[in-house]
């Protein structure tokens, strides 16, 4: 078996971010790392974050930094990754790519202890960069420029110190003096030797300054001083005239200002009132805002509170006071960026990311905490408390959806739509959600208007070619035409000159400023000055089809006669040529007039005899047939579309555009054929089944480029995104006819008719594979199952959180806190600040989604079982577990011996579970629930105590299989509790997954991969007969077939394993059972071993595996969801030729297109185990982004044309989604 691996949704979580001017203009851009993807984001004029570029780098990005050479206008990006190399990138605006400027190798690849990459620090003046590891190694590279003003990089200078753990490094701003880097270091040499433990207790963190002597070209340890032992992060303080220089040391509970020759200035980080006293407050992310006259820092704690830190300093740059002021609370971030344009980009560590706009900068004088009011007592420093409040300084203006983390995922077609939906449990704590993903683009509906009849067609038309917006919407009915004018409002008009007593066939702008209406009996040409020219059809013939652009019109009369008109110099529409076709014309189209030309050269005509012809419109060979294509079914609609199918330039400007003939056939297939620009020959046809109705094709504008709308049983959009032509369904209802729409309120919209309504909508979030419907949940979701009801389905979802209070406790606490704070605030309100007026009082003042749940002791659990109807997103039943129980496993069982109970739900819970200092629990329970209220609610039948935590449940032959720690047990239903029937205690660690098939049981162990178990009914015994030879830390598992299992491990690998055929047969035909019973394995293992047949490193922890087909009638693939919020698919190849082709393509791409950040592709995919029989589609899909020479070179080696390769790539993607 060979698999094709393809990411459907790239990782949505963010690891780190940096911002600067990477395009070189005024615009501020953000570069974010999503683990193995590097993205460039930019907030547009409307404050929406747009992704300019997204590159898969086949490695792990650990750190990002940005620097600018003095006097330069443009920032460079430095990337610290697991490649053992430092990489400097520059964004090329013209080609829309990241260009690798420098790549310097310094160590082994992989995330290692002493190989730099974890930390990056740049000199604020852009003269040097330091790259550091967790331990020992730090390298400094000097950056400069050569005579041609190109960036140069020196050989590395070492700043190593053995036996030293590094917590953070940063560049110190010291103007144009020698660059200095600061590091938090901890020396463990003595602690490792001292058996009394005294040295370990006395181990002291130090702040060390490393100076790079630019003259001598070496690095010296300049200054080192002990600092608070809770120190974890450094923040640069502006210097060199802008501020006092030095660093802020963020430590647990404190922020300390430190600099050479200055005393420490320390302030306490304020604590939330409800925080348990034994918990510290740690700063997890920081952002600096600097402008000419002021600077401040925003530091976010691990609870989400942002504090604004300001420094007071005197003329000699001596810092006199450090002030900490509560700023606002937003969900905990992994990175924050303050943009110069007044935005705060907050990359959430879990859940959606946000862009905030500053409403204020919190410059009121009163502060929560200051170095001046620091109180030291015998027990240490006096804590300072504060109460979180509503957002005051920030207002959210955009949100980027993030699935991180996907906890569980299932694919099913619960809504009976054309394609199945992906149900995924995402998020953590109060920001948990169930997200329903549908392949396709999200649509924002702007307006829906009922029309007096059922319209058949709609057009939009401008009054003048230079107008920005459309002037009229023209709607055609069976016997009438309705004209609506677009202005402040959309209303019917009668002075437009259009004939309204007849249906219309086409409406368009002709020439500069005249309008044309084609109706069955003629062509009405409306000049700008109101003159109307009418052309009548000869005899009794009527017009059936029309094709037109701004200069040319072709009509088809009934009977198959084509008449070609052209606009002459005086603006008159003149008949040029006629041609008799063999039969009725099914459809026709003319391409838009190319810029700088008089006319378009090609006319496409589709006939009912299932052929499509290309006719010339050149004066020399007018209406001559240039080429013919036979198709599988009569064409319904044609569209000639200019596509720049390859990237380079901002979306492909470098490559010559090619014209594609798109044809929607009556059997629902869309054909895309390339048209030779010179000869009109057709070549390279791509087909795709779109839906049950014949696709109607319309041109539209997407981001100023030509795009195509295809209306089949659902609407599709064909457009170019980052160099790829994408054909994506829209999540919208079936439409009849559509036209692009542009007005004041909506620059790029679509107007469409469906049934008796006129709909205006826009398409957002281009480039996304899925659109989401979000249903909020209460706690971190763990697992869920689907329960089929008589009408529809229910989801049974388990949610549990550690260290949180129950809902009642939270409500009580909150009420108390708000009352306390409210009292104070009311007092304050009289003095000013009136805006927190009455209207908002009814809302929840501190929503948990924003502020997080208050922390409880870590041995406290809250958990609930939820029954949810996905259709209307309502919870029909929610059971909160009592007495510190937490639910972890769930399954549905039909007990064989108790039929009247029907289907019951078994839930495994742990009681008083704790992990530290030692993992332990007071046992657990298996709850058995039955469905009541026709499957909408659960009712407890009974609860069975067990001696451990039941971490896996599965139905097995009308009984219940339970994994409790090392024990696999079969239970049957009793009156008061479950009854033990059989057990096997010999599993290595903890059973976390059970699958069954026939009498075979597949048991997944937390550390030791799968065990194949056979149940012998006659003996009532469970035998392990095969296991894996590799210990694998299983995180997800999937049953593939009788002998095959798929699993994923904690280190980000996916693997398939299969029991050898002969062993499988032997086990199945063992009549006496003696062999199984007496056979012994070696070294405590099972007697047989399974073979690994598939091996692939994803690079992210995979949390769920599913087998599903996302397209109607498509083959099944294995889908996976990861902690980083990405969704991928593994598609089995069906032919050997495809395997050969793609493995060769992959091989060439590995050679010609090495990954951007320096990690070798093959070693990345083989990071833990050598990759086996999986072809990396993400690498193959980088083919279109190569230069055209390189594309041709690879294509030549494969004996194909680049077009064929692109087609292959498109085809295989279309087989998955």
């Amino acid at each position, binding site marked *: 078996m060979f698999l094709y691996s393809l990411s459907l949704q790239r990782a949505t979580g963010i690891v780190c971010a940096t911002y600067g001017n990477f395009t070189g203009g005024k615009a501020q851009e953000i570069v974010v790392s999503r*683990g193995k993807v590097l993205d460039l984001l930019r907030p547009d004029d409307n404050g929406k974050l747009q992704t300019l570029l997204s590159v898969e780098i086949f490695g*792990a990005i*650990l750190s990002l930094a940005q620097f600018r050479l003095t006097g330069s206008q443009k920032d460079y990006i430095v990337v610290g990754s*697991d490649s*053992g190399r430092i990489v400097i990138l520059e964004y090329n605006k013209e080609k829309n790519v990241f260009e690798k400027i420098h790549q310097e190798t310094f*160590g*082994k*690849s*992989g*995330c*290692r*202890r*002493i190989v730099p990459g*974890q930390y990056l620090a740049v000199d604020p003046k852009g003269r040097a960069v330091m790259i550091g590891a*967790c*331990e020992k190694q730090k390298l400094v590279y000097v950056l400069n420029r050569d005579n041609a003003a190109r960036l140069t990089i020196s050989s590395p200078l070492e700043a190593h110190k053995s036996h030293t*753990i590094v*917590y953070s490094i940063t560049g110190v701003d010291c103007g144009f003096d020698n660059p200095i880097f600061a590091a938090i270091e*901890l020396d*463990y040499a003595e*602690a490792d030797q001292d*058996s*009394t*433990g005294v040295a*370990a207790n006395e*181990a002291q963190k130090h702040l060390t300054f490393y100076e790079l002597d630019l003259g001598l070209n070496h690095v010296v340890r300049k200054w080192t001083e002990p600092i608070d032992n809770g120190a*974890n992060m450094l923040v640069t303080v502006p210097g060199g005239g802008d501020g006092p220089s030095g660093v802020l040391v963020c430590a647990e509970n404190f922020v300390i200002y430190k600099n050479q020759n200055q005393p420490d200035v320390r302030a306490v980080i304020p604590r939330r009132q409800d925080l348990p006293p034994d918990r510290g407050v*740690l700063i997890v992310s920081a952002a600096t805002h600097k402008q000419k006259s002021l600077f401040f820092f925003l530091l976010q704690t*691990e609870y989400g509170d942002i504090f604004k830190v300001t420094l007071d300093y005197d003329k000699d740059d001596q810092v006199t006071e450090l002030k900490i002021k509560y700023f606002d609370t937003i969900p905990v971030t*992994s990175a924050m960026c303050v943009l110069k344009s007044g935005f705060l980009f907050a990359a959430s*560590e879990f859940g959606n990311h946000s862009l905030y706009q500053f409403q204020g900068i919190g410059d009121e004088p009163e502060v929560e905490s200051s170095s001046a009011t620091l109180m030291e007592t015998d027990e240490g420093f006096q804590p300072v408390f504060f109460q979180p409040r509503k957002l005051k300084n920030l207002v959210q203006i955009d949100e980027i959806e993030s699935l*991180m*983390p996907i*906890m*569980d995922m299932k694919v099913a077609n619960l809504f009976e739509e054309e394609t199945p939906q992906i149900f995924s449990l995402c998020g*953590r704590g109060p920001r948990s959600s169930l997200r329903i993903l549908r392949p396709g683009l999200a649509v924002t509906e702007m307006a829906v208007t009922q029309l007096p009849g059922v319209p058949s067609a709609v057009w939009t038309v401008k009054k003048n070619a230079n107008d920005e917006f459309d002037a009229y919407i023209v709607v055609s009915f069976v016997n009438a035409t309705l004209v609506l004018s677009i202005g402040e409002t959309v209303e019917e008009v009668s002075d437009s000159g259009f004939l309204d007593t007849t249906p219309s066939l086409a409406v368009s702008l002709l020439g500069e400023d005249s309008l044309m209406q084609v109706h069955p009996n003629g062509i009405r040409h409306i000049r700008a000055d109101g003159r109307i020219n009418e052309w009548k059809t000869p005899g009794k013939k009527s017009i059936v089809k029309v094709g037109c652009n701004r200069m040319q019109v072709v009509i088809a009369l009934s009977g198959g006669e084509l008449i070609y008109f052209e606009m002459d110099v005086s603006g008159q529409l003149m008949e040029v040529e006629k041609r008799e076709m063999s039969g009725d014309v099914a459809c026709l189209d003319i391409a838009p007039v190319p810029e700088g030309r008089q006319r378009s050269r090609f006319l496409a005509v589709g006939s009912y005899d299932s052929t499509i012809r290309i006719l010339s419109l050149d004066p020399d060979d007018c209406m001559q047939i240039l080429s013919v294509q036979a198709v599988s079914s009569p064409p319904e609609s044609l569209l000639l579309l200019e596509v720049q199918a390859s990237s380079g330039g901002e979306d492909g400007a470098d490559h010559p555009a090619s014209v594609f003939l798109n044809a929607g056939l009556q059997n629902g297939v869309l054909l895309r054929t390339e048209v030779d620009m010179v000869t009109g020959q057709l070549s390279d046809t791509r087909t795709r089944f779109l839906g049950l109705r014949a696709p109607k094709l319309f041109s539209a504008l997407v981001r100023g480029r030509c795009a195509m709308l295809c209306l089949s049983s659902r609407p599709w959009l064909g457009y170019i995104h980052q160099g790829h032509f994408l054909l994506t369904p829209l999540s919208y209802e079936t439409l009849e006819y559509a036209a692009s729409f542009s007005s004041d309120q909506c620059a790029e919209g679509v107007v469409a008719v469906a049934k008796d309504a006129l709909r205006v909508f826009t398409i957002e979030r281009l480039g996304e594979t899925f659109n989401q419907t979000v249903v909020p949940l209460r706690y*971190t979701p*763990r*697992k869920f199952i689907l329960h089929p009801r008589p009408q529809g389905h229910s989801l049974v979802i388990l949610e549990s*959180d*550690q260290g*949180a209070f129950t809902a009642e406790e939270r409500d009580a606490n909150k009420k108390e806190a708000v009352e306390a704070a409210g009292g104070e605030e009311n007092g304050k309100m009289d003095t000013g600040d009136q805006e927190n007026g009455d209207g908002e009082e009814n809302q929840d003042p501190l929503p948990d989604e924003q502020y997080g749940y208050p922390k409880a002791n*870590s041995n406290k659990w809250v958990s609930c079982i939820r029954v949810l109807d996905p259709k209307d997103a309502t919870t029909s039943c929610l059971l909160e577990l009592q007495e510190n129980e937490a639910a972890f496993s769930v399954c549905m069982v039909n007990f064989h011996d108790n039929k009247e109970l029907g289907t019951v739900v078994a839930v495994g819970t742990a009681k008083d579970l704790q*992990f530290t200092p030692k*993992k332990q629990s007071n046992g657990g329970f298996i709850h058995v629930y039955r469905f009541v209220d026709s499957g909408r609610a659960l009712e407890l039948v009974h609860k069975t105590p067990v001696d451990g*935590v039941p*971490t896996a449940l599965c139905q097995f032959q009308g009984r219940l299989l339970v994994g409790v720690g090392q024990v696999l047990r079969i239970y049957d239903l009793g009156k008061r509790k479950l009854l033990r029937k059989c057990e096997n205690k010999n599993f290595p*660690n*903890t059973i*976390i997954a059970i699958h069954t098939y026939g009498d075979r049981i597949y048991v997944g162990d*937390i550390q030791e991969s799968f065990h194949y178990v056979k149940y012998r009914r006659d003996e009532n015994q469970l035998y392990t007969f095969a296991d894996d030879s590799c210990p694998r*830390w299983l*995180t997800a598992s999937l049953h593939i077939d009788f002998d095959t299992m798929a699993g994923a491990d*904690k*280190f*980000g690998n996916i693997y398939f394993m299969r029991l050898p055929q002969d062993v499988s047969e032997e086990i199945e035909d063992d009549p006496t059972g003696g062999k199984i019973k007496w056979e012994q394995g070696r070294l405590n293992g099972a007697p047989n071993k399974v073979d690994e047949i598939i091996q692939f490193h994803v690079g992210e*922890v995979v949390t769920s595996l599913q087998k599903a087909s996302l397209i109607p009638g498509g083959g099944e693939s294995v889908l996976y969801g990861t*902690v980083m919020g990405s969704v991928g698919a593994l598609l089995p190849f069906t032919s050997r030729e495809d395997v050969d082709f793609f493995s060769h393509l992959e091989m060439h791409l590995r050679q010609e297109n090495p990954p951007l950040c320096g990690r070798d592709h093959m*070693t990345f995919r083989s*990071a833990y185990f050598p990759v086996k029989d999986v072809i990396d589609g993400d690498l193959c899909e980088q083919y279109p982004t190569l230069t055209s020479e390189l594309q041709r070179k690879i294509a030549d080696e494969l004996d194909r044309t680049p077009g064929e390769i692109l087609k292959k790539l498109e085809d295989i993607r279309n087989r998955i989604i």
Partner: protein
Amino acid sequence: MYPDEATTRGVASRVYLDNVCGTSVAASDRFNINSQLEHLQAKYVGTGHADVNRFEWAVNIQRDSYASYVGHYPILAYFAIAENESIGRERYNFMQKMLLPCGKPPDRDQED
């Protein structure tokens, strides 16, 4: 997900079967492997030697593991979900644990 999957922390250093770039052993150097070993021991923390004891070995493995957790963000996130802490806190905790990952070292005199 059952959180124990994440909190049971395994030995991650055995996963370093990975590529060795920069220090590939050329055929001609194979004969002076001893001198190479000494060089490696000086250059790379944790390169073993004949007299390495159980404690040193374990400490080394643990530090490698913690460094690996800190470096692999998805694993860090996985732990953070299991322990219901922020990712920043998890990273800090792992870095702190690198000081004394296996408790106090054994008394040298007793061991002999």
